[in-house]
């Protein structure tokens, strides 16, 4: 029973990270119809940013979250204005944007190799190994903190998208951009902001991930794939759908430990992805867009 409770708690805590990670990818796809392959690159960049600020300046990773998110947001806007903006979108622009953003990812990865070598790094703080008893199970304090930050991020996003003019405009642009222009929404500006938001979410997820796992310049590849799984499972843009899908993926991975060797658990998510695509082929990226 204790073991079961432990695994349930572990699933929920991991799901927070997965949801944050996936939401950025889903948001950009939902609004711009672009698969941001550089999502993986930004996850990696977020991890290194948190690690660097901690190891060089002793800044706690949770303190560097906001500034890293802000810089990534601006970087995302710059990437949109400088690169993505020039590409055709949707069905017509699929290949170009995939190639471009994959290229950006490769560049970022190689810059990371150059700056930090390919060695695994870890972000260790004084509380990294501290644990507490929660509902009869022993849980890591840091994992709870990661979950709390992820949850707060998703709640803020949900409020932004449903309660503010800007958020409603973002959802409206996803559904009919011309009608947005007609009521005075500057669609290009919404695209840039959305790309910035998605990029910031990737960096936040990367920084949180760095407090949990060792990482190197390839960090982000597996996370990108997991983000795909969550987006495919949960549909686009619904915070609730994303959260449920993230929980499913996390639970499947965590509980798989009971049945298969640990080094195979990472593959479980992809088996899930294939199953979903086979069983619900039309469900790729869902029908509802930021409803």
């Amino acid at each position, binding site marked *: 029973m204790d073991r079961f409770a432990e695994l349930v708690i572990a699933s929920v805590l991991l799901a927070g990270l997965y949801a944050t990670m996936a939401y950025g990818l889903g948001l950009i796809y939902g609004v711009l119809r672009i698969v941001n392959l550089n999502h993986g690159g930004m996850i990696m960049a977020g991890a290194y940013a948190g690690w660097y600020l901690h190891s060089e300046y002793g800044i706690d990773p949770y303190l560097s979250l906001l500034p890293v998110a802000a810089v990534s947001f601006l970087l995302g806007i710059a990437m949109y204005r400088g690169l993505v903006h020039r590409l055709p979108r949707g069905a017509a622009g699929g290949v170009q944007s995939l190639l471009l953003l994959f290229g950006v990812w490769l560049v970022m990865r190689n810059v990371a190799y150059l700056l930090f070598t390919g060695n695994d790094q870890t972000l260790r703080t004084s509380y990294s190994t501290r644990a507490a008893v929660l509902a009869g199970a022993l849980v890591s304090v840091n994992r709870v903190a990661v979950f709390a930050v992820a949850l707060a991020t998703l709640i803020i996003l949900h409020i932004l998208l449903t309660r503010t*003019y800007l958020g*409603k*405009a973002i*959802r*409206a642009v996803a*559904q*009919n951009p*011309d*009608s*947005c*222009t*007609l*009521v*005075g*929404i*500057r*669609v290009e500006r919404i695209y840039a902001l959305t790309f910035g938001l998605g990029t910031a979410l990737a960096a936040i997820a990367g920084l949180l991930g760095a407090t949990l796992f060792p990482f190197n310049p390839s960090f982000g590849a597996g996370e990108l794939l997991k983000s795909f799984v969550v987006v495919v499972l949960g549909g686009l843009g619904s915070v609730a759908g994303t959260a449920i899908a993230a929980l499913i993926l996390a639970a499947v991975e965590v509980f798989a430990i009971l049945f298969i060797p640990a080094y195979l658990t990472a593959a479980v998510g992809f088996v899930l992805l294939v199953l979903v695509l086979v069983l619900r082929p039309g469900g790729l990226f869902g029908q*509802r*867009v*930021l*409803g």
Partner: protein
Amino acid sequence: MLEVRAIDAAYGDVQVLAGLSLEVREKEIVTLLGSNGAGKTTTLRCVTGLLAPRKGEVLFRGQPLSKVAASDRAGLGIALVPEARELWPQLTVRENLELGAYDKRARGRAAQNLDRVQVMFPRLLERRSQVAGSLSGGEQQMCAIGRALMSEPSLLLLDEPSLGLAPIVVEQMFEAIRALHASGMTILLVEQNLAAALEIATRGYVIETGQVKLSGTAAELRSDPKIRAAYLGL
């Protein structure tokens, strides 16, 4: 108030408008008539800025619009009710209306304009929490008109508001347009329902393959033998 001066417009290599000119004066209700593919929707797209004319100029209150971004034209007082409604299907009726007042000029008075729209179309109040995609055709048309009114336009462009609606709903729609005109709004109405359009309009233009073929007061057009034969079936 609105002056379209000899505009040419094209989609890629396909020229659609060729030297089209028309004018809508303050407080008028002008109808733009013509058969399918004549270029009526394209004309409205040039006025709203969704399409840039290749030649010619569109002026609003004497100001050339070629330098005004499409997204700034709502702020000048131009609003369009598009041909296929073009609502945001997964936003609620309420959200669709609220976004109609997105432009900062109208945002401050969004609450009172929302009340006004909901008094005009009580059905929208009943359906306010429903997503727009689940509305009936008539309700969607009301929502599209309501959204346009939320920006407090001085010039309202309506693209075939009666399209695909039951006769009784069409009648309500024309009644609503008449009421808006009576309240002082200037209206450019695109219609294929000539009889109904000429009944409420002050003047009209008939376009064919991107050019004005006929124009005049509603009474003149109603009694024009060519129109009676070609469009009214008389």
